């Protein structure tokens, strides 16, 4: 296991931006936890990898989307971002397509994450 001491919160993000509030409400949860001084890991799975695509815009009615929130992660000291390697592959996305640096992880490493956090929330 890569962490001697378990981290506090694993937030698993599985939905893309704009289509539902899942992603935004998951990110809000992560930011609040970080603001309370908790150690947070974000794991982007499935279509959740599209949350990281560069050049997102507001929705046609002015819906804010989630890109601005992602840009705030660093300020909140959320710097452990994992992204499912097979999902990147499935969507044909490379690191150069993403707005943030995230570590591509294999299925085998993903299976280690839930046990190494005190709390796991899936969005």
């Amino acid at each position, binding site marked *: 296991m890569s962490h001697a001491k378990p981290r506090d919160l694993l937030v698993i993000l*599985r939905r893309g931006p704009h*289509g539902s509030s899942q992603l935004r409400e998951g990110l809000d949860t992560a930011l609040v936890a970080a603001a309370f001084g908790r150690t947070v890991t974000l794991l982007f799975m499935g279509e959740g990898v599209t949350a990281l695509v560069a050049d997102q815009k*507001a929705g046609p009615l002015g819906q804010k989307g989630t890109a601005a929130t992602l840009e705030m992660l660093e300020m909140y000291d959320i710097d452990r971002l994992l992204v499912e390697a097979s999902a990147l592959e499935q969507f044909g996305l490379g690191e150069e397509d993403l707005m943030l640096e995230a570590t591509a992880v294999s299925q085998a490493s993903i299976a280690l994450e839930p046990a190494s956090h005190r709390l796991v929330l899936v969005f």
Partner: protein
Amino acid sequence: MLLHTLNRSPATSRVYQQALAAMGPEDRLLLVEDAVQGALPKLMRYFTGLEGRLFALREDLVARGLEGQCDPSVQIVDVDGFVLLTEEAEKTVSWY
């Protein structure tokens, strides 16, 4: 000729299979909301057989940063084009 709309990503939901099963040979399919992910070249394989009848909504692609990344076989329309598609079709069936 009917217009079918699909709003869920083929990476997440199997509903696209039901849309395809219910489509007649002239029917058109418009990808909206999260389904526009299906316009990426790597996800196009879910929609084979729809050449010339597959559309994706520009505004939803733009909001997701995907506009420049679509497969060239997908026809991109804006909301005005969406309304036009519903005018041209006898009726519309929505899959979600």
